[in-house]
């Protein structure tokens, strides 16, 4: 293994791998990415794969709109013949209360300012988009047809292939054990396969990012939390968009070849890195989803799995440098929506490292970890 690098990236999920590519694209040499397991083995592999632009804050809108734009042509850019399976079938978010309706109407005004043609559907219009939706208590829905989903596996593999061709070294099965610090800088990353002396470190360790930060003496206000998903056998086409209910807390989508995927958060989930399965989840998500989409009840569950949300206090990402260490760039705290903003986040992180102007200039002073001390939170009203 190389024992010297300009940049060591910790984490082989989409954020780490895309950041490696963005740095190499900017001419940075001697980049080493270390991953304790295999590529796309953590939250990237376990996410719901949706990409949503219907957000309620300017920052999340900028991050997601820029990312979707990049995803539209990413397979060509990365010369990945298989493609990344990007499909824009929309997000449908049903409304069940007046408060929710007001919030969505407010969001839509903001979203339209950013050029998104989001629709507010009346109850009688909802079935033209989701024919199987129950009208029970339904007061309407927000719908945007350019939201969608893509393969997290192929997206990460596409970034990895392009990064490797540009000279990036990827070390799988390589766990970070600690750092050697000098004058508030990391000078060496100690791994299970040996030491790597380096100028810069990127912490993109997802559910383990706060543990990595702690090794450098940095306290990050993050918690990791298990979230579970199930998938059914393929059945005939019942609905196309992602259906995401803030009232029930679930999201569900039918994949192009027929399986239906669904997930729900558990308000009583203890924090930690437990990734076991629970029967309780199967029952909960089945009850909630069939109450809104009764026709999916006949689909048979084939598999369930879990992954980690890495949750920040305002559920928005943390980027840039912490106060305590001058060369550990953070790309953490995505709170369950890292995959959908990976292109913008990795581009901005690479720009911060190379000292370029940022694609979103405000990111430097709005997404830094210092915002929590200053009390300048980015409070996102639309998260499940």
């Amino acid at each position, binding site marked *: 293994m190389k024992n010297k690098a300009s940049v060591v990236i910790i984490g082989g999920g989409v954020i780490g791998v895309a950041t490696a590519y963005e740095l190499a694209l900017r001419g940075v040499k001697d980049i080493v990415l270390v991953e304790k397991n295999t590529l796309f083995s953590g939250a990237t592999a376990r996410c719901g794969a949706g990409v949503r632009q219907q957000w309620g804050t300017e920052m999340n809108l900028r991050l997601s709109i820029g990312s979707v734009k990049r995803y539209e042509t990413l397979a060509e850019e990365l010369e990945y013949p298989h493609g990344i399976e990007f499909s824009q079938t929309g997000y449908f978010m049903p409304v069940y209360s007046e408060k929710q309706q007001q919030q969505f109407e407010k969001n839509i005004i903001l979203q339209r300012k950013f050029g998104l043609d989001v629709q507010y559907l009346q109850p009688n219009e909802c079935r033209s988009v989701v024919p199987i939706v129950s009208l029970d208590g339904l007061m309407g829905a927000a719908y945007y047809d350019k939201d969608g989903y893509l393969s997290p596996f192929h997206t990460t593999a596409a970034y990895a292939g392009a990064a490797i061709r540009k000279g990036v070294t990827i070390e799988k099965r390589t766990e970070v054990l600690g750092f050697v610090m000098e004058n508030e800088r990391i000078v060496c990353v100690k791994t299970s396969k040996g030491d790597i002396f380096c100028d810069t470190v990127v912490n993109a360790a997802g559910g383990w990012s706060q543990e990595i930060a702690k090794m450098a003496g940095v306290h990050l206000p993050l918690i990791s939390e298990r979230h579970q998903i199930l998938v059914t056998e393929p059945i005939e086409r019942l609905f196309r968009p992602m259906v995401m209910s803030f009232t029930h807390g679930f999201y569900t989508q039918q994949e192009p070849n027929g399986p239906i995927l669904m997930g729900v958060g558990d308000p009583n989930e203890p924090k930690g890195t437990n990734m076991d399965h629970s029967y309780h989840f199967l*029952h*909960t998500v089945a009850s909630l*989803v*069939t109450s809104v989409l009764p026709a999916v*009840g006949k689909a*048979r569950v*084939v598999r369930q799995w879990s992954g980690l949300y890495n949750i920040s206090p305002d559920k928005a990402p943390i980027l840039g440098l912490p106060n305590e260490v001058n060369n550990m760039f953070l790309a953490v705290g995505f709170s369950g929506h890292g995959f959908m903003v990976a292109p913008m986040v990795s581009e901005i992180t690479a720009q911060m490292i190379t000292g370029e102007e940022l694609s979103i200039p405000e990111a430097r002073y709005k997404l830094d970890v210092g915002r929590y001390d200053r009390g300048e939170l980015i409070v996102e009203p639309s998260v499940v």
Partner: protein
Amino acid sequence: MNLKDDNTIVCRCADVTVGEIKEIIRKGYTTLDEIKRLTRAGMGQCQGKTCRNLLLQVIANELHVPVTEIELSRLRPPSVTIPLELLAKEDGNEE
């Protein structure tokens, strides 16, 4: 079953051939989990009950190691398929 023939179908649920598996392995994705995620082999109705042993054999052949040295992937519940409407009716207790 002839695993030397690239056209042999290893995963019948997702229609994946020996040749496709080998191509992924040669790109450096050598574990059962990586292969499953990139080809969908083992993600279908049978959940790998048919293809898992065959996949392990293809990996072992490509890497020139005994099949016993290949890392297994996690078996995920449920072990038989269950309709969502049945799960919704249950009381949700773990026992």
